[in-house]
């Protein structure tokens, strides 16, 4: 009997499978490699990765959880979008079971906190910033440099256009509204300043404030420098334009870094913060916690899942994450050999929260809902920036309470 057992190959013994859901379809391969590292160190656990496109992810997850058929570990959106899942009781608090979270900076862990009880419900994985990606070779070809003022930036765009290069690639098709919202987040701080977020949280400023309208107007002013027919292009097609060298710039978040490199290893690119009207030695960028990985309450593999989550909260994982997918990890002390990533980590020091994502997704209608749906009308000239700002304000006013302190 025992001899027979010894003859059974070790591989035939089914490893415990922990199911993990994510919306980062672009990082599929890189993530597989990361978890292979974990599996090597923990051969009795297999992490099964399942990806759903971002636009369907949240409702797929909440429906599956509602039906008791979710994964063991779920990638979770941050801030307001985390709350419905916590309130419905789908997730387990992790303060005691994953102590590593408490060692992360607040800018990261803030996105994984439940408003109801202040506990952590996920292991944050990144603090992306929003900036402008640019193709260094195309810039050299057009004879331009990183702009230090807005006027220089427009000048650059004109020179690129004259040279037959698309200045900026962007997507505006259905399902890509978040990218246009993100563009506003890229240029926002350069227009409304680093203290605007705090003012809005205290109720001292609203979306209808001329500073925010000016940010929307600046977005509109840049439209002539987007590619022809951007309204019909989606995010993936837009990234293709940048990656294939047809467009010189792309307004995006740090999360583009890894996928750009993976799609075109020969692409020479760097980043800069969107410049304001006056030169600033320390330009401010929008930053936010992108999300976290949480433990599903109905999971039958909690012990194994917690092993995975504790690994994900460790500095080792942070370094591996930064190296594999090219995102800034949730631990800013991580160093990187990638010059672009290093630059982004440095830019993180001068950041303000990404206004609509961090501050206004707590209840429906979220500011993002409104801006993502309506901004295409502003882009096609059917709506004025003032009207868009007014709509956002009207929508969030149905639930927003300024902080009292």
């Amino acid at each position: 009997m025992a001899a027979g057992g010894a003859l059974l190959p070790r591989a035939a013994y089914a490893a415990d499978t922990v199911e993990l859901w994510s919306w980062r379809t672009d990082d599929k391969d890189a993530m597989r490699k990361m978890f292979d590292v974990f599996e090597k160190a923990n051969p009795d656990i297999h992490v099964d990765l399942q990806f759903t496109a971002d636009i369907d992810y949240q409702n797929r997850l909440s429906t599956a959880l509602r039906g008791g058929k979710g994964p063991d570990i779920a990638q979770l959106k941050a801030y307001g979008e985390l709350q419905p899942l916590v309130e419905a009781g789908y997730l387990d608090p992790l303060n005691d079971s994953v102590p590593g979270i408490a060692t992360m900076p607040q800018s990261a862990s803030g996105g994984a906190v439940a408003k109801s009880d202040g506990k952590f419900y996920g292991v944050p994985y990144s603090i992306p910033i929003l900036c402008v990606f640019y193709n260094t070779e195309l810039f050299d070809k057009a004879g331009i440099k990183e702009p230090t003022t807005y006027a220089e930036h427009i000048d650059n765009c004109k020179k690129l256009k004259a040279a037959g290069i698309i200045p900026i690639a962007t997507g505006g098709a259905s399902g890509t509204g978040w990218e246009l919202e993100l563009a506003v987040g890229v240029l926002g701080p350069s227009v409304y300043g680093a203290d605007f977020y705090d003012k809005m949280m205290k109720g001292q400023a609203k979306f209808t404030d001329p500073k925010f309208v000016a940010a929307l107007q600046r977005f509109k002013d840049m439209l002539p420098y987007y590619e022809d027919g951007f309204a019909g292009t989606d995010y993936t097609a837009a990234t293709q334009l940048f990656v294939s060298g047809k467009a010189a710039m792309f307004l995006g978040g740090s999360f583009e870094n890894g996928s750009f490199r993976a799609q075109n290893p020969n692409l020479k690119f760097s980043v800069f913060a969107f410049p304001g009207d006056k030169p600033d030695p320390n330009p401010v960028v929008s930053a936010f916690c992108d999300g976290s990985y949480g433990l599903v309450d109905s999971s039958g593999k909690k012990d194994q899942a917690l092993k995975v989550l504790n690994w994900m909260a460790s500095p080792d994982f942070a370094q591996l994450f930064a190296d594999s997918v090219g995102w800034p990890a949730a631990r800013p002390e991580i160093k990187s050999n990638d010059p672009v990533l290093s630059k982004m980590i440095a830019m993180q020091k001068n950041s303000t929260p990404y206004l609509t994502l961090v501050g206004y997704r707590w209840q429906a209608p979220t500011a993002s809902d409104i801006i993502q749906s309506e901004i295409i009308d502003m882009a096609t000239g059917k709506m004025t920036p003032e009207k868009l700002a007014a709509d956002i304000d009207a929508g969030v006013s149905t639930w927003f309470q300024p902080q009292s302190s």
Partner: protein
Amino acid sequence: MKTLGFFKALPGWVVLLLWAVVVVLPIYALFVSCFKTTAQIYDNPLALPPQWTGANFVNAWNSLSLGQNLLNSLIVTVCAVIVTIIVSAMAAYPLSRYDLRWGPWMLLLFLAGIMLPIRLASIELFDLMKRLDLLDSLAGLVFVYIAIRIPFAVFIFANFMRTLPRELEEAARIDGAGELRILFSVILPMILPAVSIVAIFTAIAVWNDFFFPLIFIFSDNNKTIPLAIAGFVGQYRTDWGTIFASLGISLAPVLAMYLVLARQIREGIGTTGAVK
């Protein structure tokens, strides 16, 4: 006179052929695009492929578990069709052939289902499926589809059965046959067109349904074709060659079925539409 007739008929022909082109052109474009790269499709969407490579199909097949999805669609459709036919024929028989006081009311209850908007009851239906542990399962889908298709099937069966001569089952009863035997051996063979109508329309509706798999199916292994395709398209938006290939693969079985059954479908609709 003959040439005048030709000229009078010409505008009609032009209109009809124009629409035929509008119908066929997208399918043709789909077909040739399956064999091209994305760049070639951008270049000239209507040109024949420079090389007929199957690379897109391989790509699509590997990226999606299309084999599994096709199988799932097949299982769900076949089960739903067979059970729907059986239970609906059984229900239609007494309602159309027996003289029951409550007969017309029961029939009305069934027929009302044709217009009931079941999608609006999805919240409670979801809850029910959860309690019956039918979520994320093919069996769950089958039950829902049977329930939805019963009204139409009962309608068709009842209408056809009503037209049969009165004495039909009497003779069989005198011979000592049981009611079930009468239904399946005497009645049904006489209304085979009805059976084929119900089978075809149920099959098409179930195979093509997207809403219920969207709500009830979560794991990749249990997806049916429409759900798989929708997810794929949402994800791989720039590799047109592969997307077209995946559309082609999901379209092929339907096209094959249609080539075989076109005449029956045409006649079936004619009969159904005329009955009102």
